[in-house]
């Protein structure tokens, strides 16, 4: 097991280096930040000098090495847009995104999985068909449209929920949280639903198709023959076997919530790293983009490691075989 973790950590480092190299070779095509950084009347020559001093004309690997060198010393450079240190800029906004994604993930798991189980257990029932059709709405309308519609209904017409922003937040050390204030919680509801809706549909359908297959297996029939209660069969034996293969996909989908947060945060003016990323793309704010991509790369690598470890915890067949072979499902 330890060998497996060590190997994965080495691979993770390789992934991060790859992410860094690709990012910096990419930054040549995201447009030129200089024009937006200098005043309207700065001469072209001065702009070129600034570009030279910032090292934007160097080759990608050199820029990447310089970035890593500074990053190692905790200095992620200044944002071209707000001239604030990128490290603190991201650190301030990571809690907002993580808390939003966490709520979206909770929404997806506590609504999506039961819906998947229900439609898997009673596929023919009209309510399952209805749930399937309704759940499709989440993926047939673009996120920005869903967001706006929710705001129009719940904020403008009904005045139940705030139309944008994080509401009151409580600062604990460097972390700012929404969970300790009433207005913070209310501000979380609409964005979490908008963010989670797409993943909800995917998770529900995967759980459903997996549940349908598990219910047909011999060990479920044998469990019934042993007179076990429906609850024990459906939520003990069947659910566990259903969730094992769903874990990898679910782990990834919840990880991609962060990537999806980009659009939701822009619509709800949610001060997270997603909104920061969109602004940095539009502004070609290279230091922020580089730090963001490495953060997301690190995050995905962690998610994958956790999902794999979760696999070991859940699926005994792997524990004895060890190694990265993963046998999923029934």
């Amino acid at each position: 097991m330890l060998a497996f973790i060590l190997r994965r950590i080495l691979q993770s480092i390789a992934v991060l280096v790859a992410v860094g190299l690709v990012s910096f070779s990419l930054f040549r095509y995201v447009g030129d930040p200089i024009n937006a950084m200098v005043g309207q009347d700065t001469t072209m020559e001065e702009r070129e000098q600034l570009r030279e001093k910032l090292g934007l004309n160097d080759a990608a690997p050199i820029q990447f090495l310089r970035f890593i060198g500074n990053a190692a010393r905790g200095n992620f450079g200044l944002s071209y847009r707000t001239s604030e240190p990128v490290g603190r800029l991201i650190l301030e906004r990571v809690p907002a995104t993580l808390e939003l994604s966490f709520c979206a993930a909770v929404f997806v798991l506590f609504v999506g999985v039961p819906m998947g189980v229900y439609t898997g257990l009673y596929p023919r029932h009209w309510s399952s068909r209805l749930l399937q059709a309704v759940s499709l709405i989440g993926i047939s309308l673009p996120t920005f449209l869903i967001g706006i519609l929710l705001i129009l209904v719940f904020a403008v017409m009904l005045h139940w929920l705030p139309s944008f922003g994080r509401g009151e937040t409580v600062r604990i050390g460097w972390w700012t949280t929404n969970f300790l204030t009433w207005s913070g919680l209310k501000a979380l509801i609409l964005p979490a639903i908008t963010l989670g809706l797409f993943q909800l549909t995917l998770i529900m359908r995967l759980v459903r198709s997996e549940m349908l297959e598990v219910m047909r297996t011999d060990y479920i029939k044998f469990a019934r023959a042993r007179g076990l209660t429906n609850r024990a069969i459906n939520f003990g034996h069947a659910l566990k076997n259903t969730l094992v293969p769903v874990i990898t996909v679910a782990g990834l989908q919840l990880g991609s919530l962060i990537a999806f947060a980009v659009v939701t945060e822009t619509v709800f003016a949610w001060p997270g790293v997603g909104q920061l990323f969109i602004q940095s793309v539009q502004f070609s704010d290279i230091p922020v983009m580089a730090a963001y991509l490495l953060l997301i790369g690190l995050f995905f690598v962690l998610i994958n490691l956790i999902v794999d470890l979760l696999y070991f915890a859940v699926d005994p067949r792997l524990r004895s075989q060890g190694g990265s072979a993963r046998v999923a499902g029934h």
Partner: protein
Amino acid sequence: MKGYKMRLNFRHSLALTAVVCAGLSAATAAEAKTFKWANSGDVSSMDPYARQETFLLTFTQNIYDPLIRRDKDLKLEPALATKWGQTDPTTWFFDIRPGVKFHDGTPFTADDVVFSLNRANGPGSNMGSNFVSVKEIKKVGDQRVEVTTKYPDPLLADKWAAIVMMSKAWAEKNNAVNSADMTKNEENFATRNAMGTGPFMLKERRAGEKTILVNNPNWWDKPTHNLTEVIFTPVANPATRIAALKAGDIDMTYEVPPADTESLKKEANVKVLEGPETRVVFLGFDQERPELLESNIKGKNPFKDKKVREAIHRSIDVEAIKRTVMRGQSFPTDLMVAPGINGYTKELDKRPALLKPEEARKMIIDAGYPEGFETGMDCPNDRYVNDEKICQAVVAMLAKIGVKVNLRAQTRNLYFAKILRKADLSPGETSFYMLGWSPAQTYDVHNVFESLIQTPNKATKKGQFNAGGYSNPALDKLADAMEQETDKAKRDAMIKDATKLYVDDFAYVPLHQQAVVWAARKNIDLVQLADNTFPLRFVTVK
């Protein structure tokens, strides 16, 4: 200048009524008044010299005061300098207002003035271009500062209305002596904190999320507002911003997309303020390359031919663009400079009549292009109001006269990197492009000539933004002369001649001035200035 006056009266009266009732309500309102407002983008820094951008300058002028500030009619009025003037063509003096204190109670002195001016001209600051003519700044006694210039600069006072005064002691104590210098990678205290003499004090600054100002009880000037707290939040998505205003989560939004003005006017408790912005949006031609970049015509550049430019100019129906694309929120103009700017010659602002498509097509054929010609077109899609939609409309209009246009719309950073001239002033990568320009600093037409219309010249640094490379020697000579002409009448004559030159030459296709559209809830009184600045000191909450 007359046209400008006439339009002003209407705006003037509106402003007057606002002040009157502001005065009244200020007296009665004592209890806490919070004013919540939003804009599409955040103010990029608290450091007043970080960027020469209207929004940053107007926001920081709520916390800091300049020596000379502009009143509601954009005329200069005394602020921290009680008197100023030129003792001789190359020497300026500024008398300092006594008894003024910074927010932390420390007194405001001449040393602070000298320090601030040098910081504004120092490394990392964006305001350097206002000091091109300055030779030396020195303190003369406690109440006066004298500035000597390399050559007579009649506009120095105008330029310095944008330079606010900072506290020398505070800056030295908190390592904010210079603005944040990108190349040095270390943060500057002034980016997130502020110490000014202005009507409001900075209480909390969370970049990209929320910035809170509170009233400065011992401000040197009489407050013309009744606010105790101001909460500013950036809301990028226009639809969300409009919804927030309707829902009452914000009291005012600084930027309203023209499409939403109609629906907001119908809203019960919302009012809309519209006015022309000093920025002129125009189209430019590549008149430099022998042949166009993306065209089927080889060996010839159609845009070099004045007849072709005229045919195109008189086929673009700016009134139709105003009616549908801009929904009435624009002020068509045929000059490269807006009314309200010194040097706007009203009598030359007459758009030649529109040509029927057949007439224009015939002109194109006579110019030697029997089947018309093809050209690329570049436009931003998130810089000016409805920029992409205006270009699409132009593409449709030109298609009718045989000019096939391939449009490429991009976000501003990709766009500007593509079309602007390179460091060595070699031409950008475009044949037909859209640009917007407003001489924000000096409010004088020379800035337009110097940057946009004069021939690009690396040595004299002229024509930096003349992306199409239009070149008219006669105009170049006039522009250089007007820069230093101090006699107003002679200068105005030069301006008129130069303007006539580029209008008759159809050098550019000026479209319109964008409308500055703000929206606020009915219980808020505020004043909308022509240069799109928003001093909070004129806001009162009923």
